[in-house]
C-alpha cells in the first residue's frame, strides 16, 4: 500500500478530479434542465388539461330525482303512497374484486335470492359501470345495520335510501290507480329523457300512467366532491328537485270497495259517475290484481300467473271491455224514436212472442215467449219488450239509430283521463261497408235496436250514457281528476269538469217519458227489476236491465234453463241506473260477465252501490223515497 501511495501523482489526480467534477456538473445541469422542462410542460403547457382532469376527478354531478306526487281519493285517503325504503346498490366499476364474488360475500350478511341476482344482472347490462345497480330492494332494519358494520369490506357497495311506491287500496282499485314500474327503453321514447335521469320508476298503468308527467316532478342536481373511492364527501352546490304534484281523484275509496265486494266472486265491472260533474265515484274491474307486485319489477312467475289466469285480472273491463249492451240501449233508442216522431208514446202496440220481416221466415223473438200483448212505450221499457222495439227500430231505421246512439256517446271513446280506453261499436251503414264490405240488412236494424248484433259498448260508455238521461242532456265528460295538490303549500287547484255537447231535445217532455219508464223498471210491479231491485226502495231509482247474448240461440229453440248452459256461453248481465231521480247524484253501469239475468244479477249490485253512496252523503235523508216535506219541517 505504502509503495502504491508513493507513486501517486497528486497534482494529476487533482486535475483529473476537477475535470470529472466539471463533467458531472454539466450532466447535473442537463438533468435539471430536463426535469424543469418536464415540470413546465406539465404545469404550464398542459395545465389546462390537467386542471380539467383534476376537476373531473374531484367533482361529480348527481341527479336528485324528484319525489313522486301522491294519489288521494276524494276524501283524502291515500291511494298511492311513497314509503321510505333502503336498497343495496353495487357500482361495478368500484368493487374491489369481481361483481360476482362481491355478491357472494354480500349474501352472507344480507339475504339475496336468485330472483334478486337475476334482476341485478339483467339491469346491470343496461347500466354504465360507474352507476349503481340495485342488488336488493327494501332491506330490513337489521340488514341495514349488518351492512353498515361491514361496509369497509365492500367498496363499491352502498345503501341508498329511497322511496318506494305502494298502493293501500291494492286490488280494489288496481286498474284505476295503476302502478309504476322500472323505466325501460320504450318508456323513455315517449318522454323527455332529461326529466328521468336519476329516476328509477315511471307510471305504467291507470292514473299513474295518464298523469305521469305531472306526478313525476322535475329532477334537481347537486355537485358533490368525491374521493377516489367515489364516495361523496361534501356537497358543493345544490339545485333541489321539484316534487311532482299530488293528485286528488273523484274516487270514493269506500264506494270502490263496496262495488268490488258487491260483484262477489263473479267477473265484471262497475262504473259509478257523479252525473253533475262526470267525476268517477267508483270504477271497478273484477278480478283486480296486487299493484305492489309491479313496483320493484314483477317476477316472471307472478307475471305468468296473472297473464294465464282465465279471469284475466290485468284486463280493465270497465273501459277496455266491449260488450253488447243488450236492452240497456232501449231508453236511448226510445228518445230517438220520440224525437224523430216515428212513434206515439201513448199508442199501444200489439206485441206477440216474435215477429218476422217481410220475405223472410226468420223469427225475431221476444225474451218473453208468450209476448207482452198490447203495450205502450212506457210499458215496453218497463217490461223490456223486444218486439215493441223491433217495430220501433223498423220505423226509426239504422241511420237514426246510429245518429241517436252516437249522440249518447256509443261508438266513441269518452275521453276519460285514463289510458287504453276502447270505443265500442255503434254500427251504421258506413261502418258495415267499411269493416265488412257488405250492405246493411234490415234484420240487423232489429237486433241493433235491442243492443245486440254488431253493437258493443264499454261499461264506462253505458255509465256516461245513463248520466245524459239523468242530467237531461247536460252531462259532463267522465274524469277521475278532482284536483291537484301542491306538495309544498298543500294548496289545491280544482279541475273544472268539462260539459259534453248538450243533447237538446225538441220536446223536453221526452226526457220525462223515458225517465218515468226507467223508474217503472224498478218500482212498477211489472218492471223487470222490481223484484230484484225495487223492494223497499230507500231512494228513487231509475234503471234499465240488459242481458247480452254471448252465443246466438238456434232458431225456434226455447231459451234453455240458465243453469244448464255452460258458464262461458251464458249471457252477460247488465244494469244501468241513476238516483235519486229528481236530483241525480249517482249514475251507474254494472256488468257481470256471463252473469245471466240483468235484473237479477247486475241489478242488486247497482242497488247496493247506489244505496251505499247515497247513505254516505250528508243530505242523504232529503234524498229518500219516503221523505215528506211536512215531516222535515216539523223535524227542523
Amino acid at each position, binding site marked *: 500500500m505504502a509503495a502504491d501511495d508513493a507513486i501517486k501523482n497528486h497534482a494529476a489526480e487533482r486535475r483529473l478530479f476537477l475535470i470529472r*467534477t466539471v463533467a*458531472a456538473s454539466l450532466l447535473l445541469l442537463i438533468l435539471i434542465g430536463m426535469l424543469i422542462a*418536464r415540470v*413546465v410542460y406539465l404545469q404550464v403547457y398542459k395545465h389546462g388539461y390537467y386542471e380539467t382532469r383534476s376537476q373531473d376527478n374531484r367533482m361529480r354531478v348527481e341527479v336528485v330525482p324528484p319525489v313522486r306526487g301522491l294519489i288521494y281519493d276524494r276524501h283524502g285517503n291515500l291511494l298511492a303512497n311513497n314509503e321510505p325504503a333502503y336498497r343495496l346498490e353495487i357500482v361495478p366499476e368500484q368493487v374491489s374484486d369481481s361483481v360476482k364474488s362481491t355478491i357472494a360475500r354480500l349474501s352472507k350478511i344480507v339475504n339475496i335470492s336468485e330472483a334478486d341476482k337475476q334482476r341485478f344482472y339483467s339491469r346491470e347490462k343496461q347500466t354504465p359501470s360507474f352507476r349503481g345497480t340495485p342488488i336488493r330492494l327494501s332491506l330490513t332494519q337489521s340488514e341495514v345495520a349488518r351492512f353498515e358494520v361491514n361496509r369497509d369490506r365492500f367498496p363499491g357497495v352502498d345503501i341508498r335510501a329511497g322511496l318506494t311506491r305502494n298502493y293501500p287500496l291494492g286490488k280494489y282499485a288496481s286498474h284505476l290507480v295503476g302502478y309504476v314500474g322500472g323505466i325501460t327503453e320504450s318508456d323513455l321514447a315517449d318522454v323527455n329523457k332529461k326529466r328521468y335521469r336519476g329516476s328509477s320508476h315511471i307510471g305504467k298503468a291507470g292514473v299513474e300512467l295518464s298523469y305521469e308527467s305531472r306526478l313525476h316532478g322535475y329532477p334537481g342536481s347537486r355537485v358533490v366532491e368525491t374521493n377516489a373511492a367515489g364516495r361523496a364527501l361534501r356537497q358543493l352546490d345544490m339545485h333541489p328537485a321539484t316534487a311532482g304534484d299530488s293528485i286528488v281523484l273523484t274516487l270514493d275509496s269506500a264506494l270502490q270497495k263496496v262495488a268490488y265486494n258487491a260483484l262477489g266472486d263473479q267477473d265484471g265491472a262497475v262504473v259509478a259517475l257523479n252525473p253533475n260533474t262526470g267525476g268517477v265515484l267508483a270504477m271497478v274491474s273484477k278480478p283486480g290484481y296486487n299493484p305492489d307486485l309491479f313496483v320493484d319489477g314483477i317476477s316472471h312467475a307472478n307475471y305468468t300467473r296473472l297473464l294465464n289466469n282465465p279471469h284475466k285480472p290485468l284486463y280493465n273491463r270497465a273501459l277496455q271491455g266491449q260488450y253488447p249492451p243488450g236492452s240497456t240501449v232501449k231508453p236511448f233508442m226510445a228518445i230517438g224514436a220520440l224525437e224523430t216522431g216515428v212513434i206515439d208514446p201513448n199508442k199501444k202496440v200489439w206485441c206477440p212472442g216474435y215477429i218476422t220481416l217481410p220475405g223472410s221466415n226468420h223469427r225475431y223473438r221476444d225474451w218473453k215467449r208468450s209476448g207482452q200483448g198490447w203495450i205502450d212505450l212506457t210499458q215496453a221499457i218497463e217490461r223490456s219488450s223486444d218486439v215493441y222495439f223491433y217495430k220501433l227500430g223498423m220505423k226509426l231505421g239504422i241511420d237514426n239509430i246510429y245518429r241517436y246512439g252516437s249522440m249518447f256517446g256509443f261508438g266513441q271513446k269518452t275521453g276519460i283521463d285514463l289510458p287504453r280506453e276502447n270505443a265500442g261499436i255503434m254500427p251504421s251503414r258506413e261502418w258495415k261497408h267499411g269493416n265488412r264490405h257488405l250492405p246493411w240488412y234490415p234484420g240487423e236494424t232489429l237486433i241493433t235496436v235491442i243492443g245486440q248484433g254488431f253493437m258493443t259498448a264499454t261499461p264506462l260508455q253505458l255509465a256516461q250514457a245513463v248520466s245524459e238521461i239523468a242530467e237531461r242532456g247536460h252531462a259532463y265528460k267522465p274524469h277521475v281528476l278532482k284536483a291537484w295538490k301542491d306538495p309544498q303549500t298543500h294548496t289545491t287547484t280544482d279541475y273544472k269538469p268539462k260539459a259534453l255537447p248538450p243533447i237538446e231535445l225538441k220536446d223536453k217532455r221526452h226526457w220525462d217519458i223515458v225517465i218515468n219508464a226507467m223508474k217503472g223498471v224498478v218500482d212498477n210491479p211489472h218492471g223487470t227489476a222490481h223484484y230484484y231491485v225495487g223492494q223497499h226502495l230507500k231512494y228513487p231509482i231509475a234503471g234499465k236491465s240488459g242481458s247480452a247474448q254471448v252465443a246466438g240461440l238456434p232458431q225456434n229453440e226455447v231459451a234453455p234453463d240458465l243453469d244448464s248452459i255452460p258458464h262461458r256461453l251464458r249471457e252477460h248481465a247488465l244494469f244501468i241506473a241513476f238516483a235519486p231521480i229528481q236530483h241525480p247524484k249517482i249514475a251507474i253501469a254494472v256488468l257481470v260477465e256471463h252473469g245471466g239475468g240483468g235484473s237479477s244479477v247486475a241489478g242488486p249490485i247497482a242497488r247496493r252501490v247506489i244505496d251505499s253512496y247515497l247513505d254516505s252523503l250528508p243530505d242523504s235523508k232529503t234524498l229518500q223515497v219516503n221523505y215528506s216535506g211536512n215531516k222535515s219541517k216539523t223535524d227542523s
Partner: protein
Amino acid sequence: MSTTAHERPATLSAWLAHWRIDVQLFAALLCCALLGLFVLYSASGRSEDVVIDQAVRVGIGLFAMIALAQVPPHWYRVAAPWVYILGVILLVATLVLGDAAMGAKRWLDFGVVRFQPSEISKLVVPLTIAAYFHHRSLPPKLTDILVAGVIMAIPVALVVRQPDLGTALLIIAGGGFALFFAGLRWRIILLLLVLAAAAAPLVWFNLHDYQQQRVLTFLNPARDPLGAGYHITQSKIAIGSGGVFGKGWLNGSQAHLDFLPESDTDFVFAVYAEETGLFGVLGLMAIYGFIVARGLFIAIKSQDTFQRLTAASLSLTFFFYAFVNMGMVAGLLPVVGVPLPLISFGGTSMVMLLASFGILMSIHTHRKLLAT
C-alpha cells in the same frame, strides 16, 4: 481552527464552527427538512402525528449529522470496509429474518428500531470504494475497477434478492459515482453503458412481475389506467393541475381526496407540485441544487483522494435520489421506490441522508490549513 475546544464560543457562527457544522450546508438542509414538515402535514391529510414523527427523525438525523461531523475523516476511511462488511451481514440477515411488507423483505426489526439495512450499504459502498482507491494511483487500473465492481456487486445482489430494484440501482449509482470521480476512463464508461444496454433483456426476464409492470406502465401509462398506471396518471394530474402558482398549501385536491396514492412517501413531490406550483418546484430544485453544489465545492476543497471521492459521490448520490424521485413522479422515469430526499415521510432515508452530510461536514471542517 482558531477556536480551541475549551474556550466558550462567543457568537453563533463561532459556535457552529466549534461544532464543525458547515453553516451553508446546515442552513440548506434545515430549510429543506422544515419545508418537508409542511409538505407532509398537507400530504398526510393534516396528520399531526405524521409531522411529529418526522420532526423527531429530523432531530435524530441532525444529531447524527453533527455527531458524525466531529469524527475526523480518516476514521471513516479506516472504518468504511468494516461497516461495509456489517452492512452485508445485515442484508443477509434481512433475507433470512426480515419483515415482509408488500411482498418484499426489506426491513429488520430490532425491537426499538426497525430499519432497512440496504440504507447502510447505500451510504457505505461509495465510502468503501473511495477508501480502496485512496492508496491507488488514479485513474484506476483494470484490477482496481474489478475490485470496485465486486464491492458493489455483493450488496446489490443481496438487495435484488429482497427484491428491491430501486435500492439496488441506487447502490450501483453511489459506487458508480465514486468510480467516475476516481477517473474511470470514458472508454470504459461507454463500454459499461453498452454492456448494460445489452444486458437489459436478460435483466428484463429476471424481473419480478410487478417490476415488469412498472416498466411497461412507464412506457405507456394509459395501458392500465386503474391498475399500475394509476399512480403515474394521478401524479401527473396533480402536478399539471398545480399550474404556475399552485393550488395553495392544504388545497391540493388530488392528495386530499385520496386520488394520489402514497402521497406522503414516494409521491410527496406531486402533492408539493400541486400545492405550490412551478414556483415551488423551482424553489425546491434551487435548494437541492445548492446542497449538491455545496457538496461538490467541499469535494474540490478536500485534501485527499478518499475525501474527494466520498464528498463528490455522496453529493451526486443525493442529487441522483432527488432526480430519480422527481423524474418518476413527473412521469420521466419508471416508478421505482425512491423517496424524495429530506421530504418524504420515512425515518431511515432521512437519518441516513443527514448522516451522509455529517461526513461531508467532517471532511470540510477538518481541513488542515496548508498550501497545496
